[in-house]
């Protein structure tokens, strides 16, 4: 069955959902950011697995390296960009967390937003 054969993808998808769950349900904002990173990583896993090739070798030319056996280098290149993006978003998110913590003294999202409702009402 294809799902079994594609279990890398399946794992990536499950990780994706776990990450999404963390982002949505966790109340601690740092955990939310961890969830975000899990989601990102799952997509990287997914993309890298797309580039996998049975019995493939690293895509570096050199003695004994046969181009027809190399794994797909394109997803790797994309992932490099993706990682940088992920790092950037995480950096920004963490600095927002620092500021939020300084101002509210809490990391609990329900308390952050409860206060908002009180201020509005």
């Amino acid at each position, binding site marked *: *069955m*294809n*799902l079994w*054969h*594609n279990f*890398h*993808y*399946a794992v990536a*998808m*499950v990780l*994706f*959902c776990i990450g*999404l*769950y963390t982002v*949505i*349900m966790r109340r601690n904002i740092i955990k939310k950011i961890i969830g975000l990173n899990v989601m990102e990583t799952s997509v990287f896993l997914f993309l890298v*697995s*797309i*580039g*996998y*090739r*049975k019995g*493939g070798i*690293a*895509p*570096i*030319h*050199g003695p004994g390296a046969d*181009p*027809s056996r*190399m794994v*797909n*280098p*394109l*997803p*790797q*290149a*994309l992932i*490099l*960009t993706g990682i*940088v*993006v992920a*790092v*950037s*978003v995480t*950096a*920004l998110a*963490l*600095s*927002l967390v*620092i*500021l939020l913590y*300084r*101002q*509210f*003294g809490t990391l609990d999202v329900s308390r952050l937003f409860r206060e908002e409702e009180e201020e509005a009402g």
Partner: protein
Amino acid sequence: MKRLVSLLFIGALALLLLYVVSRMPPMGEPDNPTATRVVPRYLEKAEDETHTPNVVTGIILNYRGFDTMGEVTVIYCALAAVLAVLGRERRGRIRDYVELSGLPSSVIVRTMVALVVPFILLFSLYTIFHGETSPGGGFQGGAVIGASMIIFTTIYGLHLSSVKVPQRFRSPLEGSAVITFFLVGVLGFFGGGNFLTYAWPRVSEGLHPALVTWLTVLVEVGIGLGGAMVLISILFAMVREEGADEPLA
């Protein structure tokens, strides 16, 4: 209730995604669309066209160089974003908040760090300059430099590291990755090609391989330098705890 709904939603999403996975091309087969389209050319011709044995580097810097320009812009953007949120340390006033950082640590740790950091820096240089023949590259090298500064800062404190990498040295270099890319890109026009063309058609045939290699290395260095400075600046902005005790608002 909200929990249940979310769980149901995510469960449904997971099932759908798994269904899609089961309909995807089988992983690793040589006749997948991913393996038959576009990529064969990279694998076969990359060495001749980009003069880098490492195909990944060839793709990053040459075939898809513009993506990488975007990528360095993203990291630069992240720096600007962090600075916009947290603020940059002020010039000259760095002593005020130095004592807050820097972990108390033993002489052994301090000595070890002092000994190891130069080697880490050396390794980062290797990573940068060897990017085109082996795994590695500008950004990875920059990240290693950044990591070395993280170690240094945690042990020796912000003050000393900000003396080692002062702001007047750092801030003009933060954009160097983007600037290098831009310059190399524009040089492509004058060489008779398009933006980011490394193999200038106007320059005589004999020069091509060397030119491409040198431009690649130039870009790598730019990325490494810029990336490192950006990471260090982000680090400093986050470590800085000016007036952290009392909530601002």
